[in-house]
């Protein structure tokens, strides 16, 4: 039997299998097809979360070991008012970062989608390249730029705008600048994808019916881009709340965030149960927020717009 003869037969079998899956005749086949992604999600998402949850109910032994006995004391400790300002600051920083990202990303994505023409691919690549860079390299670069002897201070001194070097590092400004820098692509890409999907004929139709450029934007483009705005905000806000590297390197004691607190429990303090409890609380707050938003969203006009496309 030559391979050439064998091939059509095996393809035929695969075809038959696939068509029976699609038509739903082969019960359970869809589970088989879902298995790889379920396995990945299970191993790398569900399992770690379950582990963190389990650890958060254990006791810290001497020298940071885990004592497997059930306790809720970690949660009681984590909910002490002393930690509220850290949590509040994390949400504030993430919120400010998200708004700044949105303010920068919307015009950027809009220009990319509507005016970039043939340069679109190159521009998106330029946006992505810093993102592929090691984030440590980027953070050290920012430290050099923002330092007392750094480029920014040098430039401001040269221009005569300041008389003495300004302390940028260790301030909220530096942390938020870093966060905006790191999370900007998370805002730009979903926005761009959403704007790109708006049929241009709708914009033509709006102008045709008498709406000027600004009115067309407000009545057509903006409402239809809201799903992208929301997706971008979630994708920026959620990882931003948990970020600790940026605050670690560019911030100081006044910019201590919930991410730093959790990281320190696992690294410096060797208190995994307490860190686990903090992480679990953060997960609960964020997922409650996202679920509430999705519930709200499923009834709104933007959800309808999403369904149409």
């Amino acid at each position, binding site marked *: 039997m030559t391979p050439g003869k064998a091939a059509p037969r095996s393809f035929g079998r695969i075809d038959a299998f696939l068509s029976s899956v699609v038509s739903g005749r082969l019960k359970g086949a869809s589970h088989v097809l879902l298995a790889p992604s379920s396995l990945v999600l299970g191993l790398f998402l569900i399992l770690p979360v379950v582990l963190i949850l389990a650890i958060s109910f254990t006791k810290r032994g001497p020298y940071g070991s885990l004592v497997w006995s059930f306790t809720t004391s970690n949660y009681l400790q984590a909910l002490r008012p002393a930690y509220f300002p850290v949590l509040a600051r994390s949400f504030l920083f993430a919120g400010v970062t998200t708004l700044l990202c949105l303010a920068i990303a919307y015009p950027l994505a809009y220009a990319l989608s509507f005016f970039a023409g043939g340069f679109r691919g190159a521009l998106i690549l330029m946006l992505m390249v810093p993102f592929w860079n090691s984030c440590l390299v980027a953070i050290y670069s920012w430290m050099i730029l923002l330092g007392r002897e750094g480029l920014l201070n040098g430039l401001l001194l040269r221009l005569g705008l300041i008389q003495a070097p300004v302390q940028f590092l260790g301030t909220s400004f530096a942390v938020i600048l870093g966060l905006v820098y790191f999370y900007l692509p998370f805002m730009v890409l979903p926005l761009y994808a959403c704007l790109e999907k708006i049929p241009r004929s709708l914009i*033509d139709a709006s102008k045709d019916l008498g709406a000027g450029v600004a009115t067309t934007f407000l009545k057509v483009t903006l409402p239809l881009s809201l799903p992208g705005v929301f997706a971008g905000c979630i994708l920026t806000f959620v990882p931003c709340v948990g970020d600790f590297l940026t605050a670690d390197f560019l911030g100081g004691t006044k910019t201590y965030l919930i991410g730093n607190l959790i990281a320190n429990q696992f690294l410096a303090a060797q208190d995994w149960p307490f860190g686990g409890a903090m992480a679990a609380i953060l997960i609960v707050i964020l997922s409650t927020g996202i679920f509430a938003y999705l519930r709200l969203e499923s009834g709104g006009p933007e959800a*309808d717009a999403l369904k149409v496309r």
Partner: protein
Amino acid sequence: MGKTPLLEISRIEKSFGSQKILKGISLQVFAGEFLTFLGPSGCGKTTTLRIVAGFEEPDKGTVRLNGEDVTRLPPYKRDVHTVFQHYALFPHFDVFENVAFSLRLEKTPEPEVASRVRGALDLVKLGGFEKRRIDQLSGGQQQRVAVARSLVGRPSLLLLDEPLGALDLKLRRQMQLELKAIQKKTGITFVYVTHDQEEALTLSDRIAVFNAGEIVQLGDPKSIYETPRSSFVADFIGSANILEAQVKLNDGEHVVLLVEDEVELRLPRPVGFNGAEGAKVPLAIRPERISVHFEEPASDAGRLTFPGALQDVVYLGSATQMIISPFPKSAKVLAATIMGKADVSIDGARRRVWCEVSPRDVLLWPS
């Protein structure tokens, strides 16, 4: 005529990159008219429409609306509305808000908005659909909403860019009649783009036939069908047997043509035909203008007859098409359409037949 045309396009040229899409389009459209741009895809008809709507600026030439030069005006400053090919309805608004869009922009008072939207929806037979979401409508209903949305603002000119292209044949026929009725009822001037010649013949007061960036013929459906000005028009509007003929004799009164090197036809010289002796010219005969006989007809001086072999019989329902080969040496065949029930079955194929044509139906063109 003395009348100012509602729309006057003069010598419009447009290139995209190095490709010249429009090579000097001139056209006048009068108030109340239903004019169709007809042509194959890529002929420039949609580009011309987009220039009239204001979405494209021509490289050269002017567009005048009611005598006013609007060539450089953006679409929102023109008293022209468009029905788009894929309707372009706003998915984030319901039917009512889609139709009310232009009224809201003009800050029309709410009671008037309500009554005018209702009127427009009644006109397209969609009363009661106000609160429907766009994705809950069928293609035909979406098309009606698009028409209502464009008509509600009472534009002086409505442009329709292949509005029925996405509908199935039956619905398309029905919508054609409804569009025509709406146009009559509202008195609004329609400029309609289509590549469907049957649609153009059904709807239009006048047809502008486009080919390769030019208007090759402009006239009412009958004159375009009966006296096409080129073999392209003859072929594109309706169907035609396009043949090649050599002029054997042209004495000003009569011409003798050798068709496909085999059949000689002698006929009175058609007006304007100036083919020189020896020249090769295109010749067209419409399938329904050929009568087919199974016995040699008595010779009639006024008619042209030539024999052929019946190759195939195609049943078309309301008509029967016969494929005849009058030129044994070439592969060229003639199609002849017999309306109604033809008394010939497929078994009759390969029989010897005689084709009869009136000289008037042999189409020839000045070169």
